């Protein structure tokens, strides 16, 4: 009977149910299609919920085609679809019909970051009150690492601006691709996902903390690379946003 499951599973993948005839009462074709359609449409709808901006950018029909192609190449393996679509952005990048939309894959990466931040482990971020009154050298030598929800992304396109207007606005703003690259921060300090455009100096500071360096070393790196930027207010702003991992988590 293992045969039955093998044959049914193969038919779901190929769409060809003829080999199932030994197991069915009557010809399987039209009725088998209900299952095949549930499977493929279920995966495509899950992707549509996870990538609403991509769907808006390409339209429902194009999205369905792209999602179904993704399903054929990357069917789900885990037992939940909540985080299905891990490779969707990479897939979009190589998806021939989407090639003219050079920003699409990076916008998808931002949507993915939002989803991952939304479901990331709960943890208290480091708060201003936690460090207030610490001796300066103790603060300087703290290397808390990042809050587990933090995701940063870099793009050669204005991917953040494209994503944000398509996420927030009923009538999208015009974004010129000439605007150049943008970096994005997505994180969930408590229960709500936050996002904003990152400056290169912010991004450098965050990457140093992520690498396990302490606040002093990260600040020095910012001062060295961006002579016009004051590291102290940059640090305070990131701290207030809840970017760093809290002490007891």
């Amino acid at each position, binding site marked *: *009977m*293992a045969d*039955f*499951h*093998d044959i*049914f*599973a193969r038919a*779901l*993948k190929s769409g060809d149910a003829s080999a199932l005839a030994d*197991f*069915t*009462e*009557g010809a*399987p074709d*039209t*009725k*088998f*299609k*209900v*299952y095949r359609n*549930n*499977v493929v449409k*279920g*995966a495509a709808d*899950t992707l549509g919920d996870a990538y609403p901006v991509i769907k808006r950018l390409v339209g429902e029909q194009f999205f369905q085609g792209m999602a179904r192609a993704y399903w054929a190449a990357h*069917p*789900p*393996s*885990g*037992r*939940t*679809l*909540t*985080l299905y679509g891990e490779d969707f952005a990479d897939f979009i990048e190589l998806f021939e019909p989407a090639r003219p939309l050079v920003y699409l894959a990076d916008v998808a990466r931002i949507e993915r970051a939002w989803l991952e931040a*939304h*479901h*990331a*482990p*709960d*943890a208290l971020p480091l708060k201003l009150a936690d460090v207030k009154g610490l001796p300066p050298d103790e603060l300087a030598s703290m290397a808390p690492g990042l809050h*587990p929800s933090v995701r940063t992304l870099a793009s050669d396109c204005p991917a953040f601006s494209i994503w944000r207007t398509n996420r927030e606005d009923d009538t999208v703003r015009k974004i010129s691709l000439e605007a150049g690259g943008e970096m994005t921060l997505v994180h*969930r300090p408590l*229960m*709500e996902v936050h996002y904003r455009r990152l400056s290169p100096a912010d991004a450098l500071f965050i990457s140093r903390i992520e690498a396990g360096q302490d606040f002093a070393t990260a600040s020095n790196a910012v001062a060295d690379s961006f002579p016009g930027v004051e590291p102290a207010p940059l640090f305070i702003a990131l701290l207030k946003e809840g970017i760093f991992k809290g002490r007891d988590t």
Partner: protein
Amino acid sequence: MASAHPVLAPAPEMGAGIGLKPQHYRSVLESRAEGLWAEVHPENYMTAGGPRLAWLDAIRRECPLSLHGVALSLGGAVRPDRGHLNRLRALADRYQPALMSEHLAWCAHDGTYFGDLLPTPYTEAQLDRFCAHIDETQDALGRKILIENPSIYLPLKSDMTEQVFLAEAVRRTGCGLLLDVNNVFVTSWNLGQDPYSYIDGVPGEAVGEIHLAGHEQDENLGDQLLIDTHGAPVRDDVWKLYDYTIGKIGPKPTLIERDSNLPPFDQLMAERGRAQDILEAANG
């Protein structure tokens, strides 16, 4: 070995419940409806953290909860996935659900998760395997589960009816049944059988929960094939069958299942109120 697990004891206050969707978290939390309870797919809560889990914590403090699994693949060719069982157990420990259930179906094979409830032939060999999978699940969870009858679209060659298959699983494993009255209607319609005699064949004392949902006609085959979409109100034919079922087996916690085309909360609660009224009338 299965008989070592506690017997099914739905919380006595469980009347009619609703399938819980994120859009309705706040409304459920604020509702004070008599007998209300909530059911979720545990798979949607298998995340590291985040607001879904926090909402469910809050809702669990207000009303009984049912964890209705869709991904164990009990009707599959191989044993239940160990990692998935562990995650289910962790959710059960966290939320202490009044009820836990799964399906007479399979959904995963050879590394692929299909995300749909797929049919199994009702044969002796399949029954042996299905019961072994239920035993393993009940042992891993430390409690009994309810098994739901599926909607069938494609009839498979079988040695026995679905009712006999399920009754045998109940006898061998001590599991209970989640009787989906809409699925009974849809399957019976699709196979050209009588839904009322299906109900007559169900061991009523094993039923721990009832599902009600909407179905629609297949877009290609029309009324030759009904599809259990969970995307429409419960049909009058199904309400009639539900009335008959409650008359036959007594009042059981009943769920309005709605997974797509979600109506406003009040509309869902009005549908749920109809089931609540029927249950209260049956309770006398």
